[in-house]
């Protein structure tokens, strides 16, 4: 492989273009397919020249499908990037926000926010962030020192944190008669339907700076692949890098959880596939994971709302149906 920087930049540019193309195709499909068959052309016509379109189709495309597809784009990108960062920090291919229990902690925070009657932004986002930081601290304390690098220790603590979080969530749900928790089970499985364009815009505005921060640290993540001591000896301030990445990632994940509930395994599937194809360089993997995760969740959500004959199911069902078996395969292979 050619290591020179012009080559590196042109490779990154080409790759981003290709993945952006894939994402745009996924978005177009997401906009044009649904219970009301509209066809690709008329859906796109409605999108680009809303004035001349059929008012019913206008409402479907602009009011329902576009916010949902854009939310899937942002949530997919974030969760995929979150998985990549956790895998780099823990040097463990099985690390992922949902599996580690960070998403579960965010969900507890979000539910408490809902019960307190807070608005989605900034109130629920904030309680959700506190919840994710809490579980993150719990995971780090439970597997102190080097043991977190061992797959079994990491998984066990994740399973326990998740079990604990589910118990608290169920407890909160059962002691309340609140109508706002009516759709809680649906939301918990990862639901992308409850959003409108201004909310999606807010989410995008707070997450895009996070993506930039993670990209700035992408070469530091490369150096971390050599282990803590070696990275330190190559001039990386491990403590600062780890802290910033953990906090930024928890923040990103909790923001998406407060909008869309628990969508699992996106951060496992996409970084794994991309690493197989593109190699371990995080300066490539960070942007690739963003585009790849976005396209993946848009397509999963499309399946989720078109597969059932009646109604629809949460996107988290599809991502778990694909992700959980892959997780088991990865675990089995890593034991060899």
């Amino acid at each position, binding site marked *: *492989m050619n*290591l*020179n*920087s012009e080559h*590196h*930049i042109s490779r990154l540019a080409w790759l981003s273009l290709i993945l952006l193309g894939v994402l745009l195709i996924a978005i177009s499909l997401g906009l044009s397919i649904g219970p009301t068959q509209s066809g690709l052309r008329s859906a796109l016509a409605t999108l680009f020249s809303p004035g001349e379109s059929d008012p019913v189709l206008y409402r479907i495309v602009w009011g329902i499908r576009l916010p949902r597809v854009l939310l899937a784009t942002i949530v997919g990108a974030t969760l995929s990037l979150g998985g990549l960062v956790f*895998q*780099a920090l823990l*040097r463990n*291919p099985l690390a992922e926000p949902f599996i580690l229990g960070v998403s579960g902690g965010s969900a507890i925070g979000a539910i408490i926010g809902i019960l307190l009657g807070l608005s989605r932004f900034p109130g629920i986002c904030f309680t959700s962030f506190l919840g994710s930081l809490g579980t993150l601290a719990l995971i780090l304390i439970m597997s102190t020192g080097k043991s977190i*690098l061992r797959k079994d220790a990491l998984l066990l603590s994740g399973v326990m944190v998740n079990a604990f979080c589910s118990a608290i969530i169920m407890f909160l749900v059962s002691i309340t008669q609140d109508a706002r928790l009516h759709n809680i089970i649906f939301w918990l499985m990862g639901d992308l339907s409850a959003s409108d364009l201004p909310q999606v815009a807010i989410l995008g505005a707070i997450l895009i700076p996070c993506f930039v921060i993670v990209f*700035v640290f*992408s*070469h*530091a993540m*490369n*150096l*971390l*692949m*050599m*282990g803590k*001591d*070696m990275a*330190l*000896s*190559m*001039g*990386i*301030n491990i403590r600062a890098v780890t802290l910033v990445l953990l906090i930024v990632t928890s923040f990103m994940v909790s923001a998406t959880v407060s909008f869309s509930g628990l969508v699992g395994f996106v951060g496992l599937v996409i970084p794994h596939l991309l*690493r197989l194809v593109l*190699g*371990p*360089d995080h*300066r490539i993997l960070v942007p690739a994971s963003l585009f790849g995760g976005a396209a993946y969740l848009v397509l999963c959500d499309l399946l989720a709302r078109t597969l059932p004959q009646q109604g629809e199911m949460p996107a988290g069902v599809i991502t778990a149906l694909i992700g959980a078996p892959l997780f088991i395969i990865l675990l089995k292979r890593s034991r060899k």
Partner: protein
Amino acid sequence: MKSAFAVNHLSYAYGSQPVVQRLSFSIARGEIFIIIGPNGAGKTTLIKLMAGIIKRQRGRIDVLQKSIDSYSQKKLAQVLAYVPQGLPVGFPFSVEETVLLGRAPHQKVLGLASAEDLEIVRQTMAFTEVDHLARRKLDQLSGGEQQRVLIARALCQQPQVILLDEPTASLDLSHQIRIIDLMEKLKAEKGVTVVMVSHDVNLASMYADQLLLLKAGKIVRMGTPSAVLNFETLEETYNCQLLVDSSPLGNLPRVTLVPRKFLKS
């Protein structure tokens, strides 16, 4: 003589357990300095303290005649490289990518490689004889080859001092000699100071300009191999039966372990 390291009253403890206690010594530039001693003597802790991986609790460490505290992490990495024990466990890069990582202390935050960086990588891979492996993945190589790649990565930092923690452990004989010969070439051709932890007293005897024999965190003896590797000192430090005579290669001490079945009652 200018010093590469000056260590003064250096102490470190894990909790209440002292690991190194009031160590004082200095290392001249361009020397091969080998730290030996029994298990648990504090060798790894000492070399990590010297590499700035862990922070000392008492005493003073000067690197190239400046306090180690006066360097930023990145500035220190421009003059001092460290090869820890064991091999990395992260997702594997190719050999040339791994070696290029060593340029990080001289690069900007995203680590984009300049033509100069690539030329240094090429030269270093030739120097350490890993150039034929350039496209292979790190985890597909033998232990000895991986160790040479990790050393190449350290040399890409263009350090004046390199610290290695048991670089020959668990390698076969030919890889052991290749690694240590490489260190000698480094000293001879580039004037780099080499500090190394080793378990092998005979390798240490053949290559070291100075030896430091450590036991329970304290210096037992320091000096040339002939001064340190004598029968009384070794038998007392390692607490086992051994013979010390002269190596057939020249006037160097040679240590032979004596198994129980050869002992006369």
